Each structure stands twice: as C-alpha cells, then as structure tokens.
C-alpha cells in the first residue's frame, strides 16, 4: 500500500475519533467564511452567528431532552469532565469533600479526581465486575454525609459496557448528591435522555459522533450551580467564557441531529457488523470478547488475543490497511496495560493482548471482510514468533 494513500483503508477506530460527517461540514462552512461575526456583538451581522449558536444549542438540547439554557458549549469531552467535576466539587465544599467515581473512568475523569485528592478531597473508586459494569451496591455503600458528587461514565470507551446510569441517577437524587455522567462515548450512539437518566451534569464531545474535534458540551441541569473552569468575558451566560467556537458548535449540533435521527437503523446495522466480527474473531483460538455481552455500545467490539502483544498487532494490521486500537501498555506509554481491563480482573499478560475494533457510520461489510481476512494471519504470525505461545493451534 502507498504510505499516504488511505482510499482503501479500513478505519475501525471510531471510539478514538470519527470522520466529520458531510452534513456537519456543510453546516459549518457558512460560519467559517460568510458569517464570521462575534456572537456577542450587537450589530446585525453578528445576529447570524448568534442565531446559529442558539439553534445549535436548541438542537443539542432537543436530542438530550434538555432545555437549551442547560447546554454549555465547551472545547471537548475533557473540558466538560473537568468543568463538571471540579466545578461541582468546589461549589459544594461547604457540604463536604467526598467524591465517588468508578475504576474504569476515562483519564479526563480519573486524573481530575487525582488532582482533587491532592487538593484535599477524598475519592472512592467503585469497582466493576468482570464485564465492566459498575457495582451499584458498592456505590450506594460508599455514600457518606459529606459526599457531594458522584461521577460514573455512561459507556466505557475501551470495552463498550453501558452503565446503569438511570438507577444511579435516581439513587443520587434521593440522597441529594450531584450526579455527573461522562457520556462522551454514548451520545449519538445510544439513546440519552437527561430526564430519564436523572443526571445533573453530562459530558459529550463532538468528534465521537462525526462532529468536529475541539468542541463539546456540558449539560448542566437548571438550578445546579457549579464554579466555572475559566473566567473571562462571560459568554455562555457566565458559565464558560471565551469567544464562542460558532462553526464548531454548529458542526457538533448538525452531527448530533444526524446521528440521533439515524440511531435506530444505524445501531442495528452496526450490531450486525459486530456480530460478524465476533463470529470470525472468536474462531481464532485463545480469543475472548471483553465487556458486557449485550448491554454495550453497538459499534464497539473488544477482545483479548492471548500470547501476543497489542501494539505489534495494531502495527501489523495498520500495514495491512486497518486502523484498530489496543489497551496494551506499549501503546499507552505507561507501565501497565489499560486500567479498565485490569479493573475488570484481567491479568497483565492477557490485557497486553487486547484489541478494540470500533465501527461507525462509514464502516461497511467490506471493512469487516477485510478485518476477518487479515486479523487471523496477523495473530498467527505474531504467535509464531512469541516465546510464550504454546503452539496449540
């Protein structure tokens, strides 16, 4: 394959980021070129960008069953997570300094919690079971009189397991504890209704559902007061200062609307593709599926492939024209493999051989064919050079 020709490339890493949808790009372009006014300015030229921003806000709100005033545009999932957790924790120090989260959160959440621990907060990390589902009883038992915030992700980015958010939300509400969910992997892929879920705060990120990179949103329930992460010109009603990324917000909203309107058929289509992946991949000896067997993101398929290491697998797949990812330590630059897989009880050696294939809007049957044609060869090749492969094919 020509190094720079990606026309036949199979992109199976949609949980990492997605291609901008054509609809989203088209929606954005006028606000990159013609209507570039600062939405805060008072002249008519800026009405165009202000209207667009406000329409984007309404569209996002409609998809989440929220009110437009409850949507704050941010620079992405990381900012939304930081803003929600830090802002809520600091706004409620008078009540206490105890926070609850899970062991399988994204680093945007976990590292934020670690930082808050340094500032004197105490954090309980609730464990998960072997399928990556948060232990709700342990969560309930962790509540203390000084607990102010609970944050549990809606769907995990490595294994795809969907968490019992509605149940946790109802519980948090009954205890008067603020509840945040990192729904970055969920929004646009599975139904998300902030009222049904009983969440006070919810993070989402545009580039996970074929919107642009560098723009996200935070749902903040009416009446909930949290501290802003940034001070400045008072945009987003004082909750998020900085000249608004109008084109970004418009693109995010267009992509989300599109994803929501196609969600049902798209989820069914992706599930069928993933079923084919499962069938083909699980025929390879010593492979297992990770995450919950059914209660999972429709396009995310995650496996362990024993006796080989993930980075090597990814690079061999890449050379054969397939983009996938792994939780292997080698690919993350840390000493340990994915904290998610470890929290689910996998051993180091097995976690090193993890493989995530995440399909999206632009994935096809042909993509699956290609993966199923190449992966077994790559696995065999790597196992042949592995000193630990018992050779039991």
């Amino acid at each position, binding site marked *: 394959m020509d190094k720079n020709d990606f026309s036949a490339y199979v992109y199976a*890493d949609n*949980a*990492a*980021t997605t291609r901008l949808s054509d609809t989203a790009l088209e929606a954005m372009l006028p606000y990159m070129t013609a209507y570039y006014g600062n939405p805060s300015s008072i002249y008519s030229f800026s009405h165009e960008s202000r209207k667009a921003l406000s329409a984007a806000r309404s569209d996002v709100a409609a998809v989440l069953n929220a009110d437009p005033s409850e949507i704050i545009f941010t620079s992405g999932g990381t900012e939304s997570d930081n803003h929600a957790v830090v802002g809520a924790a600091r706004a409620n120090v008078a009540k206490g300094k105890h926070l609850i989260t899970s062991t399988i959160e*994204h*680093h*945007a959440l976990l590292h934020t919690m670690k930082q808050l621990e340094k500032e004197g907060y105490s954090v309980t990390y609730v464990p998960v079971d072997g399928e990556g589902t948060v232990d709700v009883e342990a969560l309930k038992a962790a509540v203390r009189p000084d607990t102010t915030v609970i944050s549990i992700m809606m769907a995990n*980015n490595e294994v795809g397991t969907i968490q019992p958010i509605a149940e946790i939300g109802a519980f948090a509400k009954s205890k008067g504890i603020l509840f945040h969910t990192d729904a970055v992997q969920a929004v646009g892929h599975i139904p998300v209704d902030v009222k049904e879920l009983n969440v006070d705060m919810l993070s989402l990120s545009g580039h*996970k559902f074929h919107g642009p990179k560098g723009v996200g949103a935070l749902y903040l329930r009416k009446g909930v007061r949290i501290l802003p992460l940034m001070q400045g010109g008072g945009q987003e009603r004082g909750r998020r200062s900085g000249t608004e990324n109008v084109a970004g917000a418009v693109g995010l909203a267009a992509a989300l609307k599109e994803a929501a309107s196609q969600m049902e058929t798209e989820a069914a289509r992706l599930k069928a593709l993933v079923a084919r992946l499962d069938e083909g991949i699980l025929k390879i000896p010593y492979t297992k599926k990770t995450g919950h067997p059914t209660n999972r993101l429709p396009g995310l398929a995650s496996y362990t492939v024993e*006796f*080989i*290491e993930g*980075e*090597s697998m990814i*690079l*061999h797949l890449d*050379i054969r024209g397939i983009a996938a*990812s792994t939780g*292997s*330590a*080698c*690919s*993350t*630059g*840390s*000493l340990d*493999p994915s904290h998610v897989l470890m929290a689910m009880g996998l*051993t*180091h*050696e097995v976690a*090193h051989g993890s493989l995530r294939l995440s399909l999206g809007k632009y994935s096809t049957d042909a993509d699956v064919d290609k993966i199923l044609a190449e992966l077994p060869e790559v696995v065999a090749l790597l196992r*042949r*050079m*592995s*000193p*630990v*492969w018992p050779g039991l094919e």
Partner: protein
Amino acid sequence: MYTEKVMDHFMNPRNVGTIEDANGVGQVGNLKCGDIMKIFLKIENDVIVDVKFQTFGCAAAVATSSMATELIKGKTVQEALQLTNRAVVEALDDLPPMKMHCSVLAEEAVKSALADYYQRQGLDPIPIVGCTGNCDACHSDHAHDHGRSDEEE
C-alpha cells in the same frame, strides 16, 4: 514515531525462530510488563555461528531483538559481550524515549544467553557477564521525558 529501520526490523525481523541444539539460551522480561525476549545461540570455537530469537512485545521489542541478533551474528563471544543497548538504538536510527527500555532488554537477552553458555561450560558467568535479566528492565528507563504520555480517546 518509529524510524524506518525500526519498522523494517519489526515487519521483517531477522533471525526469528529457535535453535534445536543451541548451547546458549537466555530469556528476559516477563509477561506482566509485556515484553519477553528469548535468544538462542549456537557457539563454536567462541564464535556465534547462529542466533535466533523469539519475542513477545511491541514493535520496538521485536526490532531491538532482531537488530541485536544481527549485531552479534558471526561475532566472537568477547565481541558480543561488548554489545550495548546504545549500539542497538544507533543501529536502528533511534527509538522513542519511552521505548528505550526495549533496547536494554535486548542487551540483557544477549547477555543472558551468553551467561547460559558460560554456565554450560562450567564457568561462573557473573564475573564475566555481570547482572543480566533480573535487572527488571521493564521498569527502568521509563522515567525519561517520553513525549506524549498516553494515547487516549
């Protein structure tokens, strides 16, 4: 992030395999840290006439194993003892800082196989080869400023 040389040795590793009648075999690393290298030496008259390796690990682990075996093939045992991880890195046109430990592992794998050879000759390898294999290479060299820290999504 990898140089072309690294990718070449990763994709087309030299000397992969085992040697049935090896007279020096060494294995370093462990599954926990995600890198294992096993080296097989066939030494005749103090010359390494054949060498093979098996590796479980990332591209850098495979490439450093491959390069290390190339560097010692046909050399005398004394020459092979001079192999350093630096030499392996240089021969590969560099490694990312966070992958330096793989070159350390490759050096240790070679030394561990040489130590086994000495042992089979009835000689105590420690004064000759030094510490091998148990230096826990997987946990060394990680403190470097390793560019970006995590892949994340």
